[in-house]
């Protein structure tokens, strides 16, 4: 039997390029303390801790949750460390949810973080293991061909990417925690910014951030009237390379979305989802994922019509998304947490009116790893 689970509270750090004012422990605690306060739960109320972050080489510490056990409040409790590449923040939330769904625990603290300034992410991603094809291009260089392929296949006009960047950065300007807050950004300024990996320009690229996100999840007895109920979770993985693999529209993402909508009882996601936090590290991934998730057959048309803006049919990334803050290991959990904030009505200046159901989405690696959830106001 599946026990109902809900988000009781969320917290996050102020995300910056270098949080030199805090250690790794301090960074995590900043998010955790806010989540506990938001959930009105104290340490004694936490049964277990689930931690997620992307590769340990990003900080230069092997399994850092071991030395962080005290700061994470995990001593004497069960602690799990999840790592599923860039989707890890979402996967961590899903694993924490499963501990409640399984009836193992009543309240679980989920934490995801990255402190990129401790090490060098480009170095960490550029190690050339034997017998493996070197990428040597960073994430932008890896994904640019996928974007070009999307533009060619869909016939999207060239300005769609800039539209997404303007929308997400302006959204980020209303989010007090966002790393980049650019209320004055315009189509012209984005299109005048440096071309990094054609067709991806500087202003269409996520930043590198130090940051953390935490959530307290609980069972039905712990939930309050404004908690965000978890309606469904999904995770799917596919190999990096196989004959016929479609990196633009990966089957793992399609399968995960299909399972998610089925389990959440959603027949028409575009009309039933009121806000979506989608993992968009490069602007063009908004229309790509709109299609992969089944919101639209032609994603760029929704974007071009302004339907993904704050007042549109499907507000996407009202928090500013990954384009405004990207502490990699936490970026997925931020999507899940921001979806919960919308449902709980606690999204401050970037609150979308009347959100009853919201999507949190994360992907990782070379688009092999997907994690998603739907949260809603009504108990499932």
């Amino acid at each position, binding site marked *: *039997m*599946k026990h109902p689970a809900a988000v009781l509270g969320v917290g996050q750090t102020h995300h910056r390029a270098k949080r030199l004012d805090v*250690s*790794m422990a301090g960074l995590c605690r900043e998010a955790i303390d806010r989540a506990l306060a938001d959930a009105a739960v104290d340490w004694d109320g936490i049964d277990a801790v689930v931690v997620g972050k992307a*590769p*340990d*080489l*990003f900080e*230069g*510490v*092997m*399994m*850092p949750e*071991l*030395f*962080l*056990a*005290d700061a994470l409040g*995990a*001593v*004497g*409790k*069960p*602690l*799990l*460390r*999840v*790592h*599923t*590449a860039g989707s890890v923040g979402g*996967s961590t939330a899903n*694993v924490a949810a*499963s*501990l409640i*769904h*399984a*009836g*193992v625990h009543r309240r679980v603290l989920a934490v995801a973080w990255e402190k990129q300034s*401790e090490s060098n992410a480009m170095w*960490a*991603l550029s*190690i050339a*293991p*034997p*017998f*493996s094809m070197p990428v040597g291009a960073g994430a932008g260089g890896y994904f640019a061909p996928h974007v070009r392929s999307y533009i060619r296949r869909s016939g999207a006009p060239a300005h769609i990417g800039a539209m997404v960047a303007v929308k997400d950065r302006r959204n980020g300007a209303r989010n007090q925690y966002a790393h980049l807050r650019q209320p004055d950004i315009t189509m012209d300024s984005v299109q005048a910014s440096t071309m990094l990996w054609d067709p991806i320009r500087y202003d269409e690229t996520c930043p590198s951030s130090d940051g953390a996100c935490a959530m307290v999840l609980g069972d039905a007895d712990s939930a309050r009237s404004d908690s965000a109920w978890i309606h469904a979770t999904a*995770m*799917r*993985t*596919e*190999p*990096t390379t196989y004959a016929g693999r479609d990196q633009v529209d*990966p*089957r*793992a993402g399609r*399968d*995960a979305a299909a399972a998610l909508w089925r389990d959440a009882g959603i027949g028409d996601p575009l009309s039933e989802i009121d806000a979506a936090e989608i993992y968009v590290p490069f602007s063009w991934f908004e229309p790509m994922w709109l299609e992969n998730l089944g919101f639209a057959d032609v994603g760029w048309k929704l974007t071009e019509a302004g339907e993904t803006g704050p007042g549109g049919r499907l507000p996407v990334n009202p928090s500013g998304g990954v384009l405004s803050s990207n502490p990699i290991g936490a970026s997925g959990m931020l999507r899940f947490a921001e979806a919960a904030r919308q449902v709980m009505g606690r999204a401050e200046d970037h609150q979308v009116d009347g959100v009853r159901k919201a999507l949190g989405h994360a992907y990782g*690696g070379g688009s*092999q*790893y997907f994690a998603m959830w739907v949260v809603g106001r009504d108990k499932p």
Partner: protein
Amino acid sequence: MTADIAVVGFAQAPNVRRTAGTTNGVEMLVPVFAELFAATGLSKSDVDFWCSGSSDYLAARAFSFIAAVDAIGAVPPIMESHVEMDGAWALYEAWVKLRTGEADTALVYGFGKSSAGNLRRTLALQLDPYTVAPLWPDSVTVAALQARLGIDAGRWSERAMAEVVGGDVDTLLTHPYIADPLRRHDCAPITDGASAIILATGDRAREINDRPAWITGFEHRIDSGSLGARDLTGSPSTVAAARAAGVDGVELAELHAPFTHQAILLRDALGLTKAVVNPSGGALAGNPMFAAGLSRIGEAARRVFDGSHGRVLAHATSGPALQQNLVCVMEGR
């Protein structure tokens, strides 16, 4: 109540000092999966959920677990997760998944190619990066500190440690120290390896295995990461996990003790007085990082499969000086 969940299959790669393959485990895992499928009659499409345990630092690369997925042939895509921990914790995540009712079968694996680097120094990077790791106390040195504290406290002796290994104890005690008071026989070998377990629920488990090892308790806890903040001669996390799991009446125990004094410490923490301990040889006979804990669960389950034991315990550890500990109790019915 949730359906009963059992270990129904176990296989492992040879525990060897050095393999020629990549650090992503694929070459070790492919034959292990084949052996598991042959023994259980399952194929990859019968597996509802996959979960693995491994370490990027051990593999000296980011995302080594993504490459390991190539051992599965994950087309169509699979429901999958990964922990940066020993595979025993991946098994725990899978056990939780089965309890939610979202899956009835799970395949869990762990892998580690320790020979790829200098294991002692690699593990030093698990320590506090601001105040401890810069001093490079390696994993054997930290274990030696723990062994010395226990000797000074009268908890064990160098002779008692040698007796964990067995054989000619007097001769063993003439050998030189490699990190006082640890001698070579006190330390697990550096091992490449991989292992895998299949879990199944209720009737599905009974279809697959005539005598499944039903999980009656599965718990884990962590102690402080600060070596100076905990009593290294005890293991509160093991005691708490054992109490929660319920270990009364176990007839056999497989302990993940990479050092002899840790076997003594764990026997005491678990209150094992009559149980047979480590019939497989334990981690002292083969210690593939990120698989050795999962292998303890598999080795214990195998004694249930074969009908030789009714109630067994397996233990796994992670982190410096037994920081994090897991207890899994299984029984035949």
